[in-house]
């Protein structure tokens, strides 16, 4: 009998049919903004049997950190040795969301917004102050070992592999750690080696791999035990364009063809655009937006950035429909609204008026979208 990582990875609900999934009492009837989509999906009259509960369910999750306050100067540091003053920081401030089997969700937000705290709670590393959380039907911090056995986690900035060992030996060690049966392990491993083109890398110590090669190996390592849920934390950070495409392509196939549920945190909107059918935006510990990327853009801004390198650094830029927002020698940054002037139209309009060396159109950076979203939120409730 041949096993396959993909057969195992496909979602098999372990739940007994007959679970009554009634949301009305859990929320006391009030609809929270973060739940809008999940409610729509699962809005069933109370009492109807619903065999596929979410892979991840988070309700009003709160996590506070005690940060030791540093007093300035040497005297302050000395005083801090004896008596510390603590300040409570709410890293996660009552967030709620559900993630269904087979979803590929982008989880975005600026640094310090609470992204990694959420992921740490979901993966059982941290115990929250309050709130409900179920991952694959389990409370992660109460059943850490059983939960993480079904999770795959990839950190873009840190490898999960053994720095000085050849890739293949790291894989073998992971087999023992996750207690994967030998036949299942071998077929999963060989399949991943073929898909990610790892064959030439297997005898190389991890420290000698390039970033892109290492990321492919890390992806394979996180999937050897056929997890049903995969956390990807900045999987494309620092990668060249080709490696980025390879990683995205692999993640897409993993999700679409094999049904692995993926939660992806990233700073790269292109990752989200290429992969995610749903985006969760977190800012200052709260969910600011839960919907498709287009919805998110629509709520904030439809504007695009046009960056142009001019032939003549001194030229006066004048192009109807676009506003100059920045200038640095030859380089000019403009904004335009593609609803009023479509991007191709705007480009030809610009090129017909100015001598251009190079030019490209981008989405506004994620930080900006989140900042605007946050400004809107705080303006709404004074």
């Amino acid at each position, binding site marked *: 009998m041949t096993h396959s990582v993909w057969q195992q990875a496909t979602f098999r609900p372990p739940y007994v049919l007959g679970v009554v999934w009634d949301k009305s009492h859990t929320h006391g009837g009030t609809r929270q903004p973060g739940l809008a989509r999940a409610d729509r999906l699962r809005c069933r009259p109370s009492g109807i049997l619903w065999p596929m509960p979410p892979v991840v369910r988070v309700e009003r999750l709160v*996590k506070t950190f005690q940060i030791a306050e540093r007093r300035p100067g040497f005297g302050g540091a000395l005083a801090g040795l004896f008596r510390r003053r603590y300040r409570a920081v709410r890293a996660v401030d009552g967030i709620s969301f559900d993630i269904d089997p087979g979803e590929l969700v982008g989880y975005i937000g600026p640094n310090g917004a609470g992204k990694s705290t959420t992921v740490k709670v979901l993966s*059982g590393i*941290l115990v929250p102050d309050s709130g409900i959380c179920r991952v694959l039907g389990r409370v992660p911090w109460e059943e850490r070992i059983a939960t993480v056995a079904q999770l795959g986690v990839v950190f873009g900035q840190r490898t999960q592999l053994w720095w000085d060992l050849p890739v293949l030996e790291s894989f073998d060690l992971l087999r023992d750690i*996750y207690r994967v049966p030998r036949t299942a392990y071998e077929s999963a491993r060989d399949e991943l080696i073929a898909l990610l083109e790892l064959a030439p890398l297997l005898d190389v110590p991890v420290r000698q791999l390039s970033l892109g090669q290492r990321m492919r190996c890390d992806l394979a390592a996180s999937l050897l035990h056929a997890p049903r849920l995969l956390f990807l934390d900045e999987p494309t950070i620092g990668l060249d364009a080709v490696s980025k495409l390879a990683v995205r392509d692999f993640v897409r196939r993993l999700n679409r063809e094999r049904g692995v549920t993926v939660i992806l945190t990233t700073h790269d909107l292109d990752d989200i655009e290429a992969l995610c059918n749903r985006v969760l935006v977190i800012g200052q510990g709260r969910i600011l937006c839960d919907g498709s990327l287009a919805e998110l853009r629509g709520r904030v801004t439809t504007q695009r950035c046009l960056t142009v390198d001019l032939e003549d650094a001194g030229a006066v830029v004048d192009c109807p429909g676009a506003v100059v927002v920045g200038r640095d020698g030859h380089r000019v940054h403009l904004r335009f609204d593609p609803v009023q002037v479509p991007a191709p139209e705007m480009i030809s309009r610009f090129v017909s008026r100015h001598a251009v060396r190079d030019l490209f159109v981008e989405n506004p950076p994620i930080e900006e979208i989140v900042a605007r979203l946050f400004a809107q939120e705080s303006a709404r409730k004074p």
Partner: protein
Amino acid sequence: MPGTLALYGRYASASVKSQLEYRASFLMHAAGNFLLSGIDFCTLWALFNRFGTIRGWTLAEVALLYGMVNLSFALAEALARGFGTFETLVRHGGFDRMLLRPRSTALQVAGQEVQLMRVGRFFQGGGVLLWAAASLDVRWTAAKVTLTAAAIIGGACLFAGLFVLQATLTFFTTSTLEIVNTVTYGGVETAQYPLSVYRPWFRGFFTFVVPLACVNYLPAHALLERNDPLGSPSWLRWAAPLAGVLFLTVALRIWELGVRHYRSTGS
């Protein structure tokens, strides 16, 4: 349990393979470790050369204590050194990675770094022990050999327990308290001499709080068939090495508390 030990073995072999990637560094460390611990014994030898005996103990008898405690310490350092470098592991986020794996944290921390270069101290201690065994006028029965092994293993457990406690402190303070080092390294120094030469409070500490005497001084009396000036009963001398195992068990319990604290504070 057998699965756990097998995994520890796999971790250990991975760690050793990693170290052998840097062969020159490994050989130099091992040699340095051998020489450094050797100098210790030279001091001891010089002392006895000058004074003959100390409180009725000859050099060969003290060498027995010395050999046992150094073997214990070398084993503990080799097998549980991961706890000794735990502070760096926490600071660089490596401990979070361990929490993401479906295995006990203590096993992963112990296994992440198995220091083979401690073979230096191991061989040096072993050499001294063999020399002591040969020059002492002692009948080496099977029971006595077993007791020696038990005392060495008990001692290794005790030192491992100290490393675990030291690592646990990392969860509560931002840095490892150096004070634990005075008990580990200081303990090795202390146990190289018979306990009876020390002051009562000091003896009490190393018998009841950190039961170093139980894995060294007390079993040595059974091996040498000496009368203990401190008046310990003879059955205790044979059972005492168990105290080391008990100490490690308690230390691992406290470690679990520390992990729980870490997971609720995240710092």
